[in-house]
């Protein structure tokens, strides 16, 4: 076991982690731990853009952006946080441009902007051009630009180091951050990183669904580690299903395709979104569009021999426009479906895309251990966190924004904290939990296989807690997940070695997915209303009286070692916008 000592440790090297690292490296001795290489992170998969009211191509302002974000989140958004997001968006985009990001340009040479779902002029009048973009690979360009600037700043990376535990230590009755424990994939060695401040920026947890736009590696590692250390998870029932994933594969096709004029059609060729969202049509918010697609499918208007998908139609757009603005997604259609998007519509279905919930933080990125108490030295930013700027449904282009605004804030806050505080003494035998976990899995002789349990989990989640949910389907999920967690106790790996043991890695990841799936299902069961991405057919309306509040899920361990989930609730911060019925 090796022990390292850094002022600030960042877990994850996607957009939020690297944006934080650029700030914290300037101010404190920083290490960035990632289970991949930085440029492999899933920020690179984001396509359509990053929202900011630059008003480069038409009138816009951050106040409209704030309103759209709050309305998009079905009023579960903390309004103070949304205001910061929208205000700081402008500098966040300009900062990236100055770091070198090659945004598309207007004829005048300024950053070009395009339309995106839910972003409107003057509180919903019409779609506004707010998304700053680099072709349909904006996330790729953000990831590359941030990595380039990390190289420039000399950020210290520990690549393929998988963080398995968070170390907290009690000082004068207060739980403070002491560091993290990581598993080095190349050697199998355990490393303890003592740190004054730790920032979790480890991304999402979409891999508990089968049809998902998420990478294989998005297994909720940070959320699970924090949760097991007794920290709450906020709003985990809210998961976004992006309307346009490639049918059956789930690969993301950007909303920018509809921003450029693409149209959703059912088997009759009908532009069905006109029925569901008369003003914004295909550019309504994602939860609205995903529900509309499944409604069409359920009512028999789906496409294909099994009627289980609809079309994204780009055939009316000039090929030059597709080549210039949407080259990657048209190539995906060619590569994976063998069709030509110039002339063929693209078969699509909603795909599990984004966790609105996560580790609760305040607007400085400080992690909360309950509704109000900050854990000194612990921070989170990006998809792993819940600020909450996305509420019950995130708007497209607000996640690339979130990672930049709150990644930066967390990086500054963590480094400033480490500059003014001392190390907390490490707990005795700090790696014991991780050693037990790793060796337990490596030496297990159980008969269960990781892939079988994971497949069963993904099938269960797709079937029961996707776009439409009822008490019955969620209960089925709760039961099945409990059953799978029992089976997981007998899971074993075939690879018993030390070097690059990805068999072991996948087993650990599955454990994280199972824990988080359970939190999601239990949180969803208790929320007897429909709001944003959480739609209950048995409670189809939003219920502001009983449920205008954030869910806070805590892991409880009884005296006999039995685990359970305790739900609590946290008020929503409302400043200037009163909840209204949400129409697009």
């Amino acid at each position, binding site marked *: 076991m090796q022990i390292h000592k850094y002022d600030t440790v960042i877990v994850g090297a996607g957009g939020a982690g690297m944006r934080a690292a650029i700030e914290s490296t300037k101010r404190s001795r920083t290490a960035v731990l990632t289970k991949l290489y930085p440029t492999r992170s899933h920020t690179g*998969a984001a396509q359509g853009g990053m929202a900011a009211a630059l008003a480069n191509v038409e009138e816009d302002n951050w106040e409209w952006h704030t309103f759209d974000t709050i309305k998009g989140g079905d009023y579960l958004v903390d309004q103070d946080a949304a205001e910061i997001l929208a205000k700081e968006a402008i500098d966040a985009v300009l900062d990236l441009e100055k770091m070198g990001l090659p945004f598309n340009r207007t004829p005048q040479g300024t950053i070009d902007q395009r339309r995106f779902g839910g972003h409107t002029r003057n509180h919903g009048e019409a779609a506004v051009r707010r998304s700053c973009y680099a072709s349909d690979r904006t996330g790729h360009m953000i990831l590359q630009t941030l990595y380039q600037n990390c190289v420039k700043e000399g950020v210290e990376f520990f690549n393929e180091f998988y963080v398995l535990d968070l170390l907290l230590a009690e000082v004068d009755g207060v739980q403070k951050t002491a560091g993290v424990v990581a598993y080095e994939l190349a050697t199998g060695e355990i490393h303890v990183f003592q740190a004054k401040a730790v920032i979790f920026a480890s991304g999402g947890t979409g891999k508990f669904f089968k049809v998902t736009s998420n990478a294989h*590696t998005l297994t909720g590692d940070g959320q699970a580690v924090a949760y097991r250390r007794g920290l709450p998870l906020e709003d985990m029932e809210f998961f976004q299903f992006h309307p346009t994933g490639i049918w059956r594969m789930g690969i993301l096709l950007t909303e920018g395709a509809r921003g450029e004029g693409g149209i959703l059609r059912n088997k009759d060729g009908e532009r069905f979104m006109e029925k569901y969202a008369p003003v914004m049509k295909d550019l309504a918010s994602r939860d609205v569009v995903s529900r509309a697609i499944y409604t069409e499918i359920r009512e028999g208007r789906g496409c294909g021999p099994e009627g289980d998908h609809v079309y994204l139609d780009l055939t009316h757009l000039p090929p030059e426009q597709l080549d210039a603005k949407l080259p990657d997604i048209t190539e995906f259609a060619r590569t994976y479906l063998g069709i030509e998007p110039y002339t063929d519509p693209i078969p699509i279905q909603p795909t599990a895309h984004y966790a609105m919930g996560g580790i609760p933080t305040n607007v400085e990125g400080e992690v909360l251990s309950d509704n109000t108490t900050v854990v000194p030295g612990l921070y989170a930013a990006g998809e792993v966190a819940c600020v909450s700027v996305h509420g019950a449904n995130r708007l497209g282009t607000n996640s690339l924004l979130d990672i930049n605004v709150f990644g930066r804030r967390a990086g500054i806050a963590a480094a400033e904290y480490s500059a003014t505080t001392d190390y907390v003494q490490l707990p005795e035998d700090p790696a014991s939990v991780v050693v037990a976990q790793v060796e337990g899995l490596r030496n297990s002789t159980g008969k269960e296989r990781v892939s079988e349990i994971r497949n069963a989990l993904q099938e269960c989640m797709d079937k029961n807690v996707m776009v439409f949910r009822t008490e019955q389907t969620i209960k089925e999920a709760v039961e099945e997940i409990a059953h799978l967690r029992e089976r997981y106790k007998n899971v074993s790996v075939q690879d018993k070695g030390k070097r690059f043991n990805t068999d072991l890695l996948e087993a650990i990841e599955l454990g994280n997915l199972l824990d988080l799936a359970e939190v999601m299902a239990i949180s969803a069961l208790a929320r007897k209303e429909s709001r944003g991405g959480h739609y209950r057919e048995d409670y189809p309306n939003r219920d502001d009286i009983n449920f205008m509040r954030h869910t806070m899920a805590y892991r409880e361990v009884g005296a006999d070692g039995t685990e359970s989930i305790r739900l609590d609730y946290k008020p929503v911060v409302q400043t200037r916008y009163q909840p209204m019925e949400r129409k697009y």
Partner: protein
Amino acid sequence: MSTPTLEKHSDALDAAESGASHLITVTLRIRRFNSEVSDEANWIDYQLDIDPKERVLDALHKVKWEIDGTLTFRRSCAHGICGSDAMRINGRNRLACKTLIKDINPEKPITVEPIKGLTVLKDLVVDMDPFFQAYRDVMPFLITKGNEPTRERLQSPEDRERFDDTTKCILCAACTSSCPVFWNDGQYFGPAAIVNAHRFIFDSRDEGGEQRLEILNDKDGVWRCRTTFNCTDACPRGIEVTKAIQEVKRALITRRF
């Protein structure tokens, strides 16, 4: 807006939408190496049933998840944008997640081996550090002088277009590890580093072009390129790599960029 006649499906769309998957049996011949087991690498055959519309990555997962959990490879996004799973498939560098079984003649055994020129650590996993070191050596970041403007730097769409192709790079190393010069001499920067230098040299906002050109004028720099076009063939992002290297060479001669 007119409603297209969606009844007139192309054959390609009909094929894409046919739900029934017909499985075929393929042999995956994988180059295995694990120093914990043996000092020697060897080929091992795996037979599996798979839908030919699936990816080589899916086939590798089938082996790992259903046959042999010790098989080791890197992967993440599974659709060609993260750059984790470059490997040599039937003798050619490709991304396993962008190569469909049906596109590589499943009649014969499909060979899968690690990319060449970088040390193999285990099975299909190679040491990427020398590759990223070469990338870092070309100063892959925007270099500017003077005060920053308040708003964005201006750049015309034409100037932006000038380096568009090389911004697509995902650092997968398919190009560098397909280059015979790199195989013979690991000191050569390799195509990927030059592509990333190109991305900045031809960015109208950048003022570090001269410095980067001097780095690439080195004996291990662009002049080692023998224009074999392996890199261009290998690039999963369709970047005209050889052309970019030629443009850097020309810039070195003319000092105009």
